[in-house]
Structure formats: C-alpha cells, structure tokens
C-alpha cells in the first residue's frame, strides 16, 4: 500500500446554520487516497458528494475532524501552500473573457510565481508539461471560448496540473461530455495518476465508467456513510447494490449492469443462440418481460420465441403462432397478446 496523499480523519461535513446550528451531511469519516491512486467518489444525487469534495479542497470548512494532504493539516497551512499541494477542477463555468489556452493554463502557476505573475523558465516548463500531458498542446494559442466541451475540460485539467500539486480533485469531470469524450478523459486521468504518482479524487455520474476505471471507490450513501474499497470488492459485498437500491436502480453483479426496477412481467422463453438471441432478450427485458433462455425447463411461459439466424423470429403463444422479421414487429405482437 502506498503512502496516503489524502487522509481524512474523523471528518464531519455539512453546513453551519445561523444560531450555532449545524446541518450535518456525513459524520466521523475516515478515508484515504494513496499516492498514484485513481479514486472515484460515487453516490446518489444529494448524498453529499460535492460537499465532501469541497471540504477536501478547503472551499468549505469541516464541522469537525481533519483533512490532511501529504501529512499536512489543511486547516494549518496557508492558502498558498494549499494551492501548491492541491489542484482542483470544478463544475462551474469559467467565463474566460478571451483568455487563450496558454494564459489559462499559466494561471495555474499563480501559487508559484512572484507578485507580478511573470513566468520563470521552470514555470513555463511546467505549463508545457501540463499541456503535453493532457494533449492540449496543439491549441495552446487558441481562445478558450472557441474550444469544445471536451477540449475545455482537458484544458482545465491542464491548468490544475500546472500547479504541480500532489493531489488532484475533480468535480463532475464527465458532465456535459459525450460517451467518447467521457471515456477519453477518465482514461487520461487514470494514466496521469499512475504515471505521475499524483493522487486523484473525482466525482462522476457515470457509474459504469467509474467501475471500469477506478482503482478505488468511495461510495457515499443517503445515510452519510462512506464505504471505500476496490470496485470489485464493493460489488461482491453488495455495497454497490445497496447504495443505489434506494434510487430505483438494481445492480446486477452477474451482468455488471444497472437495471431499472420494473414491474414483474410475463415469463417468456427464448430459444436460440447467437447475437440475435442476446438482443432479443435485451428487447424483451427492456419492455419488462421475464426472459428465460432455452433449456431452463420453463413450462409455464406465456410465450415461446424461437430465434433463427437471419435473423427471424417465430412467436408461439398459447394457441397462435406467427413469424416476424423485426424485433419491433415481434414485440408489438407480443404486447398485443398480453393485452398491454
């Protein structure tokens, strides 16, 4: 186990209200992120992901407990020293007033430069390195406002990297990005963590992607409990399924997929193999049928569907039989038969 870059020790997060009242979101948390670890914070909306992240960044005061970065207590170091330890990418839009990519990334050097903000040689080298690591070198001269969302997000990561922090914290880093860009940025961040030894902590709404890329997960539930562990362990212990059950999502450990809670539908038996059979099952499950594959020995199925390569389908239902050339056609007929 590598040394802890982020240590959370007896931390209580939440808000101070007027008249000495407090709204606690999670209490007595003890968590850690090791050097070079890519950790993803997951949890349902409103469970307190952002509050925890903001507290780790020092943007919000903890109600109790400590956050240590590289062994240093966040509450006891200066803002400038904190900025040298911790780089942040936030969800808020950056209104760039015509800043170029180079200018924006250079601002990451602010905790290192002297009063005028002039970049010394090593500052410029750090900016170039950050641009290279995020593959944004090619548009260093462009205006930030002209970039696509994916490019802009990478530039913001570059800005945080230019700070040369040992810890990088990113909030909702995949928001507003299409699937390809989401995968791209998660891969980028993961390889950054592994190559540079920086500790990365980020939140995302993309559960699937998080499970596939994270070294470790922090899972916060509605009760303010945070569970940590490697993704596979959290799946096997049922923690993942438990946290999201209340959100109307069922996690199926066998398929590795989240399923929506749907009313239990009629049983349908699918006979056949190959890709066509898999997607037939997909279509039926999407419509809420309970699907049994051939050989299950189901005798009380409402209907039986034979899948042929081609593909084509034969639907046998109590005493009728019909042939279909598309799944849409098949499912329409099936729904008509069930009287939906």
């Amino acid at each position: 186990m590598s040394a802890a870059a982020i240590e959370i020790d007896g931390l209580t997060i939440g808000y101070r209200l007027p008249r000495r009242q407090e709204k606690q979101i999670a209490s007595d948390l003890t968590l850690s992120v090791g050097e070079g670890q890519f950790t993803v914070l997951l949890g349902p909306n409103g469970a307190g992901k952002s509050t925890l992240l903001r507290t780790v960044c020092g943007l919000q005061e903890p109600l109790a407990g400590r956050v240590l970065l590289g062994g240093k207590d966040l509450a006891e170091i200066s803002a400038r020293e904190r900025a040298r330890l911790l780089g942040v990418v936030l969800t808020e839009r950056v209104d760039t007033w015509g800043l170029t990519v180079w200018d924006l990334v250079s601002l990451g050097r602010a905790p290192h430069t002297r009063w005028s903000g002039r970049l010394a040689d090593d500052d410029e080298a750090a900016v170039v390195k950050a641009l290279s690591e995020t593959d944004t070198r090619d548009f260093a001269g462009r205006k930030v406002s002209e970039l696509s969302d994916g490019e802009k997000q990478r530039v913001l990561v570059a800005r945080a990297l230019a700070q040369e922090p040992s810890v990088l914290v990113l909030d909702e880093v995949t928001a507003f990005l299409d699937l390809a860009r989401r995968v791209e940025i998660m891969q980028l961040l993961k390889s950054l963590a592994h190559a540079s030894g920086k500790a990365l902590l980020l939140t995302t709404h993309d559960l699937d992607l998080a499970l596939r890329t994270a070294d470790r997960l922090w899972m916060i539930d509605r009760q303010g409990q945070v569970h940590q562990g490697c993704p596979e362990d959290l799946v096997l212990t049922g923690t993942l399924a438990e946290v999201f059950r209340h959100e109307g999502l069922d996690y199926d450990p066998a398929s590795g997929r989240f399923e929506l809670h749907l009313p239990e539908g009629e049983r349908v038996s699918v006979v056949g193999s190959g890709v066509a059979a898999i997607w037939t099952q997909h279509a039926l499950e999407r419509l809420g049928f309970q699907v049994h594959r051939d050989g299950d020995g189901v005798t009380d199925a409402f209907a039986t569907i034979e899948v042929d390569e081609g593909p084509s389908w034969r639907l046998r239902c109590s005493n009728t039989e019909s042939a279909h050339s598309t799944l849409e056609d098949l499912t329409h007929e099936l729904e008509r038969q069930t009287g939906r």
Partner: protein
Amino acid sequence: MSESVLSERSPSPTTLAPESLKPGGVGALPWGLMVGSVALVFLLELAVGVVLIPLRDVFSILVGLDGAVDRWHRIVLDFRLPRALTALTAGASLGVCGLLLQTTFRNPLADPWFFGLVYSARLGVALFVVVSGSFGGTVLASLGLLSNLGLAIAAGLGALAMTSVLLALAPRVGAVTLLLSGLMLGQAANGLVSVVMHFTSEAQSRAFTQWSDGTFVHVGFSQWGVLVSIVALAFACSVMLTKSLNVLLLGENYARTLGLAVERTRRVIVAVAAVLAGAVTAFCGPVAFLGILAPHLARIFFRSADHRVLLPASALLGAALAALADLIVHLPWSRHFLHLNAMLGLVGGPTVVLLLLRGYGSRESSS
C-alpha cells in the same frame, strides 16, 4: 531551440521550447501606435481652440524657446496645458478604474459612472464642502493644497461607500441588475447632493453647480498636481494587484484554490477603484463612459485578457479618449453647446447597447 526538436513529439515535454506554444506577446507596434496617438491628441489639445496655434510654435512654447507670439504663451501654458494634462490623467484614471471594477465584479458592464461611484463621490464632496463651510467660509480657500486633498479624500470615501454596497449586493444579483442598482443608487446620491447644497451659502453652491457636468476646464495646475499624485499612487497599487486580477478572471472558487484571499483582495481592488473615481470626480465632476469604453477597446485592440497588458492599455486608451473628446468640445465651433459627457455619450451609449446585445449582460455578475 532548433526546428527539428520542435517538430517531433518528444517523450520528455520539458525539453520543448515554451516559445513554440506561447502565443506571441503584444508587439512594440501597437504600443507605439497607442502612445503616439496619445501624444498626438495631447499636442492637438494645445494647438487647437478658438485660436489656432501652429504645432511648431506649441513645441517652442513647451520647451521654453522664444519666437512664438507672446499671447500664445498664456493660452498654451495657462489654459490649454492644465486642461490637456487633466484630460489625460482623468481619462487614464477612469479607464483603469473601469477595468478594476469589471474584473472584480466579473461584470463587463461595470463602470464608475454606471455604478454610481461618480455621484456618491460628489455626495462626499458636497458633505465636505458643507462641513468645512460651517467652520467659516474662508477655510476652504485658505487651506489651498490641503483643501484640494480634502476634496479628493471626501470624494474617494463617497465612492468607497458605493462600492461597498455593490460588493455586498453582487453575489445575489445578475450583471444587469447590479448595473441598474448602481445607476439608481447614483441618482439617489445625486438627489442627496441637492439636499445638502440647500444648507450651503450661495457662493459655495454656485461653485458646486459649476461642475455638475463633467469638464476638464476648471482644473488648475495645483489641483492637477494633487490629482496626478493620487492617480499615480493608485496606479502603483493596481500594478501590484496584476496577478490577483488575472487569477480573479477564473472566478471566486478557482481563485481561492489558487491561494488567493478572495474577499480581502476584492475589497482592496474596489478601494483602489474608488480612489481613482473619487479623485477624478472631485476635480472634474461626473465624467461618464470612459470607464466602460477604455477596457473594452483595450481588449479588442490588444486581443488579450491579461492585466499586464490591459492595465497600461486601458490607461492609454482612457487618456486618448478623454483628450479626444475634450478636443472636439473645444474645436472652434461657432456656437458652444457641446459638452464632454455628450461627446462621450455619443460613442459610449451605442457601445454599451452593443455589449448588451452581444449577451454580456446575461453573464453571471459573480460566481
């Protein structure tokens, strides 16, 4: 560094020359043009008026050579020179003031006149005149330099009061609401000025109404000396704040994660802006639009958002605009009805509408 190193993708990024990625800085040519046009407008200010004086003679008068018509010496040195110097100083001051406000409030429409700083500064001056007047009408006149300084300080405090109100308001409202609030509070302050004037002697109020409209005419050398000292001091402070201003472009939260004490820095910046607006208003009255025009023209002209460029550029453009507007007012018109603010409004009004139409007003005023 050689071309070959740059063209291949080196595995070690630190060996790359930053110069290949860094956008070229602002060249000498735009700066030269800018300084040149300021100098040109300044000389025209000295040469042009009801009496036209050849530039050659303006030069010889300035460097103290004989040869020019005697009467011209007085016109250039006693009338036009202090007016031109005041125009340059006030313009530069308001340009920088506008830039500071725009960045601090993250509001591209911020301007000392729109934000009511100019009128709250006038209120400060009015109160100062009344209070010092109550110690005997001659106090102001006899104090000389001290009274000029007092005027500027009172105006600065007045402007500071307004910026404090707006700073408290800014996180809660949008850009346009803030702008309108400043505008309306400014009008309220202007109304209070009239109320305060009610308690002054006739002579005092006459002196006061003399600059109810902005003008650079009534500023003598001694007053200009006070003005330029205050403005120079405030410029020095602005230069010290360059890095903070750049970091503030990213918004409050990012600025904080970069180690900036955001609240304190904002208070310092608006205090400097209040001093700049106050000093100009104390001596020149309410001058409009320069604070919004100069920084935007600077951004367009230099295509930069970096305050190391924008600060001097806003100062130079503000100076040039102020002097140009003043020059047009003092052209040998057959009838004299042009006012400084009218000239500035001709350009400034449409510019603000253009900014609004381009969607600047819909941005968040504060992150």
